[in-house]
């Protein structure tokens, strides 16, 4: 039987296109120091460190957690590095939580980061592979045909993506750490932005950011003695499937559905839309919000876009999605998944400041990566399961 694990501290950097004011170590410590302060502990109190980030070619440092051991005062401690593509921030938090749940460490610091302005992100993410046909369409070019598939099968009106984008960018204005602070978007202005990879528009696309997120996790025994507010981890889930195979369902991948179903089962959730107060889901291209609402089991198949149109996912709606502004407003790739998991924790800890959803008791963090093939989720609550 696993131990209980709680988030007792959360810290993140001010995410930006280029954090030229700090070194990689400085970026990481900015988030770490805030998390430690939030948890009211010192770095000496940390038993183990679990770090995740995306491909190392983004910064040009191979396995940087080795070099960062000094900056993290990790001498004599375990340092563990996770890399599961875009979902890495989420899977890292899960691996860290499992160190606590397994009873191996009582206080674990977990970090997700990316300082992608140090390198060339576009190149680093799509180094051309010999013998293939480079169409140079990037991530947007990969996902936009899938979005086209969703629009076709669901009959969603064309403005839904822009609605999500306006919502997330507006929400981000209430998040001091978010990369993009763009208060003046309206749906009309959004629909005038150019198509980048038709049907995905400019405003519906995530930025490229430098940033880091850190969480302090504690075992139940230690968390019970800890005076601050906590986010108890009720359940975690991960699923993966191959990138491409004949007949693969790309719009609503089975791995995502199974990951969510596993999470609901473990957490005893029968009706996600009613029982969950807020969702931080990984939406790098706006259309993924209606798609994931369906994939995760909140909205029925082909109905996710209606929820967006009806305002269900607005901050004042019945199921707020991404009150932090989400990946659409900040995307340091290695950190983004942990930003979702951490923002979910902040909500139930009552620490989300201006973008707090009042009375949030149960929140979900979600991350995905690769060709929509790696999924990681957790459910956190202000009370123990």
């Amino acid at each position, binding site marked *: 039987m696993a131990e209980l694990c709680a988030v007792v501290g959360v810290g993140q950097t001010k995410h930006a296109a280029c954090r030229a004011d700090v070194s990689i170590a400085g970026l990481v410590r900015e988030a770490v120091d805030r998390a430690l302060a939030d948890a009211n502990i010192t770095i000496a109190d940390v038993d183990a460190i679990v770090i995740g980030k995306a491909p190392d070619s983004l910064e040009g440092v191979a396995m940087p957690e080795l070099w960062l051991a000094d900056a993290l005062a990790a001498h004599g401690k375990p340092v563990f590095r996770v890399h599961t593509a875009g979902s890495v921030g989420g899977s890292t938090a899960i691996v860290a939580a499992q160190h606590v749940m397994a009873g191996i460490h009582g206080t674990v610091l977990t970090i997700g980061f990316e300082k992608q302005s140090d390198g060339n992100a576009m*190149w680093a993410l799509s180094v051309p592979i010999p*013998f293939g046909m480079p169409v140079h369409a990037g991530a947007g070019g990969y996902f936009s045909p899938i979005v086209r598939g969703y629009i076709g099968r669901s009959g969603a009106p064309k403005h839904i993506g822009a609605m999500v984008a306006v919502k997330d960018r507006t929400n981000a204005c209430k998040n001091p750490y978010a990369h993009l602070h763009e208060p003046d978007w309206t749906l009309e202005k959004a629909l005038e932005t150019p198509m980048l990879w038709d049907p995905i528009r400019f405003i519906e696309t995530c930025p490229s950011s430098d940033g880091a997120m850190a969480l302090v996790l504690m075992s139940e025994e230690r968390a019970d003695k800890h005076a601050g507010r906590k986010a108890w981890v009720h359940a975690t889930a991960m699923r993966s499937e191959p990138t491409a195979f004949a007949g693969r369902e790309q719009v609503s991948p089975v791995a995502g559905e199974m990951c969510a179903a596993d999470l609901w089962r473990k957490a005893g959730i029968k009706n996600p839309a009613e029982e969950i107060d807020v969702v931080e889901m990984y939406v790098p291209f706006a259309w993924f919000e209606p798609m994931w609402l369906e994939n995760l089991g909140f909205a029925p198949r082909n109905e996710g876009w209606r929820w967006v149109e009806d305002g269900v996912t607005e901050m004042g709606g019945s199921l707020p999605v991404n009150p932090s502004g989400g990946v659409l407003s900040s995307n340091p790739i290695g950190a983004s998944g942990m930003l979702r998991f951490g923002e979910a924790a902040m909500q139930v800890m009552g620490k989300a400041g201006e973008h707090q959803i009042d009375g949030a008791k149960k929140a979900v963090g979600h991350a995905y990566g690769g060709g929509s093939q790696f999924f990681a989720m957790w459910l956190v609550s202000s009370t123990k399961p």
Partner: protein
Amino acid sequence: MSEADGLVRLRQPIGVTYNWSAGPNATSHLAGLMAGKFIGKRCPSCTLVYFPPRNGVCPKCAKILAGDVEVGPKGTITTFCIVNVPFLGQKIKLPYVAAQILLDGADISMQHLIQECEAEDVRIGMRVEPVWKDKSEWGPSLENIQHFRPTGEPDRVMGSESGAS
């Protein structure tokens, strides 16, 4: 090295050279491309035909693909996007269409460019055929095909628009 705001910035180019192998299971596929043909491979378990034969394995069954199958040359667009983003070193004129094409006889689509028509005329279900570069430029690569163009045949009705497969 540059200095600004009291910070020193060092630009350090890092060049690493690798030998990349397509692997023996790609041999007939690549040899096919050098002979102007599309050679896919069949999974011995689920019998589906893969073109290109990624890593020579069927990802669903975890079996080495066996048995060459000639596919195409024509195919059907299963999904696509219109790219409007300039890419570093780009030679293709914007906007251009990147499409998933299901070659006749294959069970999984491949990615390539669509040209010789207006971007807004591209449709799911459109029939296309390859336009090869001059033979003198051929190598073991899908780049031997300059692009695909519409054949003018009637569209094929696709199954549920799954998006890419």
